[in-house]
C-alpha cells in the first residue's frame, strides 16, 4: 500500500511535503491550480506588495549556468516581487482556497513600514490564506529600498518586522531568510523570539552568473548591463542544506526547506537536514509541475523501503550526525581501495591522486602482479564454448591488468578525492585502514 506523505508543519496539515515556492510558477491562480491538479501539496503565492508599490521589471531577467552539456546547473534571476495588483490576486487566493481546500495556500509578501506590513498581512489573512511567508531575503532590487535581504541580514530588523506581522494575524507566519549571511542562526533565533511559526530557508544566493565574451556584458545582459542577482537550482543545494541544518539543529524552529531540490532524493536530504516541508521552484520552472509525480512516488517508495510509517520520522534524522570538525573521530582512518573486477582502467584516480593528492596511486604496469591476467586470445572460431570463454575473459580483464591502479597504503592519507572521480559505481571505495601491527 502506498505510504501517506501527509505531514503537519506549523500546525497546518499538508497532503504531501512538496510546496511550490514563491516564484513565477505561483504568479496566478490558473498556474497554481494546474500545480495542485498535478499533485503539489501546497503553494506559496508569488510575493505581493501593496498596490502603491511600484514594481519595475527589466528584461531579460534570467540566465542559466551551463556546464558541458548541462544547461541549467544553476539559474540566476533579477526578477522582482510579483508585478500583479494585490487587489486582483487576493480574490484569486480566496477562490483557490475554495476550490482546493486540502492544499495549503501560503502567500508571500513584502512591505516597508509597520503599517504596510500589518495591512498586507491582514488582507492576506482575510483572503483565506493558510499561512503567510514574509520575504526578508530577496537579494536584488529590494535591498536598495531597505527591504528584502537588507532585513534578513540584520537580526534586529528581522525581529522587529517579524513581530509586526505575527502581531497582525492569527495564521502561522513563516519568515523567508537569506543565505547571504555568514551565519543564519542568530537571525533565525530572532525570528523564533518574535513568535513566528517557522523560517523558510534559503532564498537565492547573491551571485553574478557570468559575462558575454563578445560584448563584455554581465549576464543576464539588460542592454549590455547587469547586476548581481539571485542564484538558485541544483548548484545551491549544498548551501541550502547547510543553512537548514544549522537552523534546525541549533535554533529548533520549524524550517520550510528550499534551494536546489530536483529529485525525491534531494527532498529526503532536506528532510534529514531538518526541513519539515520542501519547497521547489527552479526544477518546476524547468521540468513543469508534473515532476511532483517523481517526488511523491519516489519518496513514498523510499519510506516503504525503509519501513517508515510517516515522514515525521525522517525530519531531522540526520542532524545528530552533524558535529563540529574537532568532534570527528581520529581513531579510524580510511585508505583507497580499488575493486579490480569493476575497474575499467581509465586511470582517473591515478591522475587525481598524482596531481590532486599524495601520489599514492599508480598503474600496476607491465611488470606487476599477474593475478587476474587474461588468457591469451584463443584461436578464432564460433560456438558456445568460445562465447563463454570470451565472457570469462571479459570479466577478468575489464581493464588490462597493467592498467589496474595500485594504492600505496603508506602514501595514501585517505582523502577520498579519487573516489569522487572514479566513473564506475562502487569501484573505488574508501576502506577502513587495518591497524598497523604493533
Amino acid at each position: 500500500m502506498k505510504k501517506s506523505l501527509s505531514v503537519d508543519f506549523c500546525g497546518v496539515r499538508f497532503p504531501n511535503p512538496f510546496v511550490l515556492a514563491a516564484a513565477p510558477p505561483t504568479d496566478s491562480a490558473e498556474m497554481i491550480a494546474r500545480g495542485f491538479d498535478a499533485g503539489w501539496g501546497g503553494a506559496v503565492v508569488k510575493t505581493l506588495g501593496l498596490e502603491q508599490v511600484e514594481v519595475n521589471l527589466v528584461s531579460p531577467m534570467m540566465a542559466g549556468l551551463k556546464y558541458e552539456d548541462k544547461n541549467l546547473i544553476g539559474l540566476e534571476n533579477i526578477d522582482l516581487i510579483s508585478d500583479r495588483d494585490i487587489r486582483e490576486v487576493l480574490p484569486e487566493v480566496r477562490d483557490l482556497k475554495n476550490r482546493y481546500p486540502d492544499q495549503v495556500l501560503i502567500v508571500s509578501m513584502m512591505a516597508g513600514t509597520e503599517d504596510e506590513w500589518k495591512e498586507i498581512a491582514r488582507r492576506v489573512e482575510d483572503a483565506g490564506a493558510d499561512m503567510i511567508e514574509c520575504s526578508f531575503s530577496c537579494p536584488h532590487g529590494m535591498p536598495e529600498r531597505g527591504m528584502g535581504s537588507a532585513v534578513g541580514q540584520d537580526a534586529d530588523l528581522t525581529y522587529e518586522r517579524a513581530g509586526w506581522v505575527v502581531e497582525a494575524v492569527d495564521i502561522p507566519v513563516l519568515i523567508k531568510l537569506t543565505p547571504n549571511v555568514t551565519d543564519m542562526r542568530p537571525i533565525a533565533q530572532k525570528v523564533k523570539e518574535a513568535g513566528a511559526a517557522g523560517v523558510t530557508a534559503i532564498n537565492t544566493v547573491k551571485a553574478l552568473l557570468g559575462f558575454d565574451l563578445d560584448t563584455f556584458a554581465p549576464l543576464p545582459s539588460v542592454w549590455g548591463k547587469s547586476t548581481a542577482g539571485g542564484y538558485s537550482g541544483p548548484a545551491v543545494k549544498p548551501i541550502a542544506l547547510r543553512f537548514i541544518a544549522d537552523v534546525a539543529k541549533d535554533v529548533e524552529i520549524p524550517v520550510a526547506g528550499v534551494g536546489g531540490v530536483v529529485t525525491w532524493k534531494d527532498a529526503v536530504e532536506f528532510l534529514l537536514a531538518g526541513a519539515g516541508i520542501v519547497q521547489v521552484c527552479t526544477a518546476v520552472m524547468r521540468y513543469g509541475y508534473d515532476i511532483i509525480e517523481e517526488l511523491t512516488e519516489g519518496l513514498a517508495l523510499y519510506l516503504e523501503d525503509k519501513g517508515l510509517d510517516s515522514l515525521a520520522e525522517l525530519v531531522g534524522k540526520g542532524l545528530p550526525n552533524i558535529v563540529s570538525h574537532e568532534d570527528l573521530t581520529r581513531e579510524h582512518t580510511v585508505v583507497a581501495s580499488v575493486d579490480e573486477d569493476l575497474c575499467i582502467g581509465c586511470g582517473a584516480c591515478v591522475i587525481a591522486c598524482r596531481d590532486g593528492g599524495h601520489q599514492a596511486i599508480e598503474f600496476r604496469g607491465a611488470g606487476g602482479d599477474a593475478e587476474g591476467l587474461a588468457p591469451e586470445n584463443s584461436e578464432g572460431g564460433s560456438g558456445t564454448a568460445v562465447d563463454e570463454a570470451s565472457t570469462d575473459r571479459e570479466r577478468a580483464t575489464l581493464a588490462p591488468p597493467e592498467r589496474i591502479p595500485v594504492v600505496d597504503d603508506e602514501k595514501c592519507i585517505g582523502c577520498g578525492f579519487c573516489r569522487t572521480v572514479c566513473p564506475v559505481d562502487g569501484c573505488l571505495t574508501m576502506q577502513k585502514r587495518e591497524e598497523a601491527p604493533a
Partner: protein
Amino acid sequence: MSLKAVREQLTEEGRTYAPHEAVLEASRCLMCEDPPCNAGCPAGVDVRRFIRKVRFGNFRGAARLVRDANILVGICGRVCPQEMLCMENCTRAALDGPVDIAGLQRFVGDAELADIAPLPEIAERKGRVAVVGAGPGGLAAAAELRRAGVAVDVFDSSDVSGGVLTRGIPPFRLDPAFAEGELRYVERLGAAFHHGEEVGDPVELLDSGFDAVFVSTGLWRPYRIGLEGEELKGVMLAGEFLARVAGGDPADVGRTVVVIGGGNVAMDAASTALRLGAERVYVCSLESRDEMPAFPSEIEVAQREGLEFRTRTRPVRIVGRDGSVSGYEGVGIRWKAPGALVPSNAEDLPGTEFSLAADCVIEAIGQGVHDRFESLELRENGLVRVDEETLATSVEGVFAGGDVVSGGGTAVQAVADGKRAAESILAYIEGIHDDEDDGEKGGERR
C-alpha cells in the same frame, strides 16, 4: 532512376555534430591516464588531448592539434575504421560504449576548415624532394617535408589529389569535394603539384635534381579473374566503377548486380550499386563472413543495407545474352588446407552450384602495383621492398610507403608511412647536404 535521385543517393551520409552535441560526446571521455586511444592511432593523433579541447570549447585548438598530426582531419573522421583503431581501445567501451572519436574528429575537421587553418612558420632549408602519388601517404609526407622547410614537388597521374580518397571511396562515405578541399592544405604549405604527370621510373627524378623521392602510388592495377564471359557488356572492374561514380559519371548497373570479392572495395562497390538503383546486389566471396578482408564495420553496414552474401563460393562463369551480361554462375568451395584464403586452395563442393540472374557483374578481387618501378627491388608479390624502419627502398634516396608497400591498408596507415618516410628523408638529405658543405659532390651518391 533520375540523375537527381542518383545524386541524392550518392550524397555523403551522416552529419557532423553540432557544437553542443560535440561537447556532450566529448564529455563522455574519461580523460584516462596514459590513454589507450592514443596508442591506437597510426598517425599519432593525441586523441585524449583533442577531445579535451572539444570538451572545454576549444574547437580550433582541437582542429590544429589533429591537423598537425594528421592532415586528414575530417577525412579520417569519415573513413577511418576507428572501431579497429583508437575506438577499439577506448576505456569507456567497458562502461557503456566507446566515445565516438570518429564523429568528434569529423566535427573538428569542420571546426576550422583546411583552407583557413593557420600555417606554421616555415624555416626554409636546403633540400628538394619529389613525392610520387598524391594519395594519403604522399600528401602526408609532402606536408611533413614542407613543415620542415624542404622544397616538395608532388606528381600524380590523375588530375585531382587524394588518390583513393577522391577516386575510390564512394561519395556517400566521403564527399570528394570535401576531401579535395582538406587536401589543398598541402598546397597552402607550399608544395608544388604536378597533376596529370605520369612519372616513369622514380629513380629518374633523382637524376633531374631531386635529393630524394617518396613513392606512394597506391594500387591501381586491377586484378582480373579471367572468367568465361568477362568480355560481356555489363562486366566492370570495381576500381573503374568507383572512379566513374566519384567523377560524377556513374555507370548503369541494371536491376541485379553481382559483386565478386570480399574486401572493402567489394563492399563499397556493392553499396554503391544499391544506391544506383539496383534492386538486388549479391556479394560473392571466396571467404566466409569471418574470413573476409573487409572491415567488420563495412560488412555490418553492407548487411544492414540488404546486400545478399554468397560466401565461400567461387565464380564459374558469367552468362551472356546478345553480348550483355544476363547471369552469373558460381559454386560453393571449401579450403583444402586451413589458412590460405586463395583460389588455389579452394576445392569445389559438388552439388553447390548456383546461378543468379544478373545485369551487371563487378569484379573486386583486389589491385596490384603498376609494374613500372624497374629499378626498385620488389617482393615476390610485386610490392616494393623497403626497410621496415626507414621505408628506404633498395635505391639510395628513394623511399616508399602506403599501399604500394603494404598491399592495401587504411588511409591513416598510409599517413603514418608518409610521416615516417618524411622523417627518414629529412635525416637523409641533412646527411647529403652536410657532405656538400664539406666540399663533396652530391651527384655520385647513387
